[in-house]
């Protein structure tokens, strides 16, 4: 063996070793999944076979996907994004590639994506992401991240599925639930009609306007309305037509003649807009007016009553004035007597007002006249058994009588001097006078009494005040030891 041949052999062995090492390195790289593609000898030329999928076919697949999709490397940087996602983000692929996906989504959505990727190390994860928009409705997406082996690196496949419509529908559904709850809980009758006037919804309170199931029936047929102020021109079907054309109607009084009980209603109707501006029907609200009507009647009654009473009072005042004038000799005497009588009338009115013109007890009336004289001589007055309630007209009459008797007693009778005494007491029912209530005013210990020479107004008032009824009267007995007056209150005026 020559030196040259020995050297060639060494070179050959070195080359073989190198090639063996290279072959082993290739096999190891393939086994360790470090190789992206292999070069194969084809019929004409070398061909490249990508191991683990061709990126181009991935991309083609991603492009036809409806959801936005991106392939991210291990640190969350965009390797590739499909056009759906690019459009959603309003950017370009060149802008997006190499950037952290979380940085391109805005603060809130970016945080969500970071959280999503951190949880999707080995398993698929999903999360709802909201993209706020200034003037339009926010967009809602379900973002899904799955681990993805990209050649030799581990990254993520992320998809964004638009669920805005679903979220909005859920919101709309919730609103509808709320609206239904509102309608159901309303005390007023609420009925919803479609554009043809067919009732589609009605709450429980609607049973006061229609006795039965109104759903599917024509509003104007089952609830014919007569509007008070329209002279029959406007009817229920005109109302529905008007409202579905966009003109709302507020608070119009109507009579629902077919309604089971209550007939008077305050009707309001508004166009029903479900989607956008299109009117899809009418919402009719009917409020029971029977209580208001009853209150109006009561008010009218009270006003007529007041008118009647004022006229009566004025007539009484005129009569008092005329009588007082004919029985007094000086202006001074007239003034004193007249104002005293008017004040007595006013005192009874005050008592009546405090009791809302319902009823008064005879005791209260007598006390309002006698009270000024009790303070000085409490032992001069005794009142017994007068806790009897009477109507306003008897109260006014008894008030005037009590005033005249008191004035007379103070001027000329038992209260004009020390030792005099007045007793006002109940006698009982007089069956001969239809059960009238009889009481007695008796004076004693005063100056000696003689029958008057002429009958003054006081006497006339006392005698006539209660004569409006057959059971009512007042009679005098001019007993020398003191005046006695028997007063009968008609039984119909006892409460």
């Amino acid at each position, binding site marked *: 063996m020559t030196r040259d041949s020995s050297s060639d052999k060494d070179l050959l062995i070195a080359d073989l070793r190198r090639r063996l090492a290279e072959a082993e390195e290739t096999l190891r790289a393939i086994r360790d999944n470090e190789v992206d593609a292999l070069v194969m000898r084809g019929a004409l*030329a*070398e061909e490249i076979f990508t191991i683990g999928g061709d990126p181009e076919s991935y991309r083609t697949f991603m492009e036809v996907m409806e959801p936005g999709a991106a392939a991210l490397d291990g640190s969350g940087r965009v390797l590739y994004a499909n056009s759906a996602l690019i459009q959603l983000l309003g950017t370009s692929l060149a802008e997006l590639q190499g950037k952290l996906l979380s940085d391109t989504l805005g603060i809130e959505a970016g945080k969500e994506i970071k959280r999503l990727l951190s949880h999707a190390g080995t398993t698929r994860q999903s999360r709802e992401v909201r993209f706020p928009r200034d003037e339009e409705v926010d967009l809602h997406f379900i973002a899904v991240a799955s681990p993805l082996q990209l050649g030799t690196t581990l990254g993520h496949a992320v998809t964004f599925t638009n669920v805005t419509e679903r979220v909005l529908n859920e919101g709309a559904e919730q609103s509808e639930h709320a609206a239904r709850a509102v309608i159901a809980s309303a005390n007023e009758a609420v009925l919803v009609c479609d554009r043809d006037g067919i009732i589609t919804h009605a709450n429980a309170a609607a049973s006061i306007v229609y006795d039965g199931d109104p759903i599917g029936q024509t509003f104007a047929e089952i609830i014919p309305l007569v509007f008070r102020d329209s002279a029959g021109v406007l009817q229920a079907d005109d109302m529905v037509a008007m409202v579905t054309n966009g003109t709302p109607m507020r608070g119009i009084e109507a009579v629902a003649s077919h309604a089971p009980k209550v007939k008077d209603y305050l009707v309001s109707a508004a166009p029903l807009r479900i989607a956008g501006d299109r009117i899809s029907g009418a919402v009719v609200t009917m409020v029971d007016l029977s209580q208001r009507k009853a209150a109006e009647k009561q008010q009218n009654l009270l006003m007529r009553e007041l008118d009647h009473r004022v006229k009566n009072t004025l007539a009484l005042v005129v009569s008092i004035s005329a009588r007082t004038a004919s029985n007094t000799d000086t202006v001074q005497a007239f003034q004193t007597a007249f104002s005293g009588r008017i004040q007595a009338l006013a005192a009874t009115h005050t008592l009546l007002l405090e009791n809302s013109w319902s009823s008064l007890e005879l005791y209260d009336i007598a006390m309002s006249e006698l009270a000024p004289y009790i303070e000085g001589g409490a032992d001069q007055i005794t009142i017994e058994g007068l806790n009897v309630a009477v109507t306003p007209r008897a109260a006014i009459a008894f008030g005037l009588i009590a005033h005249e008797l008191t004035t007379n007693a103070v001027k000329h009778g038992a209260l004009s001097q020390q030792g005099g005494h007045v007793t006002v007491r109940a006698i009982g029912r007089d069956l001969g006078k239809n059960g009238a209530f009889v009481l007695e005013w008796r004076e004693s210990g005063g100056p000696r009494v003689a029958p008057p020479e002429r009958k003054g107004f006081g006497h006339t008032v006392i005698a006539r005040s209660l004569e409006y009824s057959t059971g009512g009267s007042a009679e005098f007995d001019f007993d020398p030891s003191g005046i006695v007056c028997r007063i009968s209150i008609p039984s119909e005026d006892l409460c």
Partner: protein
Amino acid sequence: VEVIDLRKDPKLAREHGIVAIPTLVRELPLPFRKLIGDLSNTHKVLVNLEVSDGA
């Protein structure tokens, strides 16, 4: 360092006897040295090249 995309020019693979991608070929200094597979670990790549260079 020249970067060659073999998908665009597969002929070059035969000339350099390349069967797998990625492959890093060191032509100079001799001898030829090939690193096949994961090249992302820069330190490992450099060490490999230097170690083989010294062998």
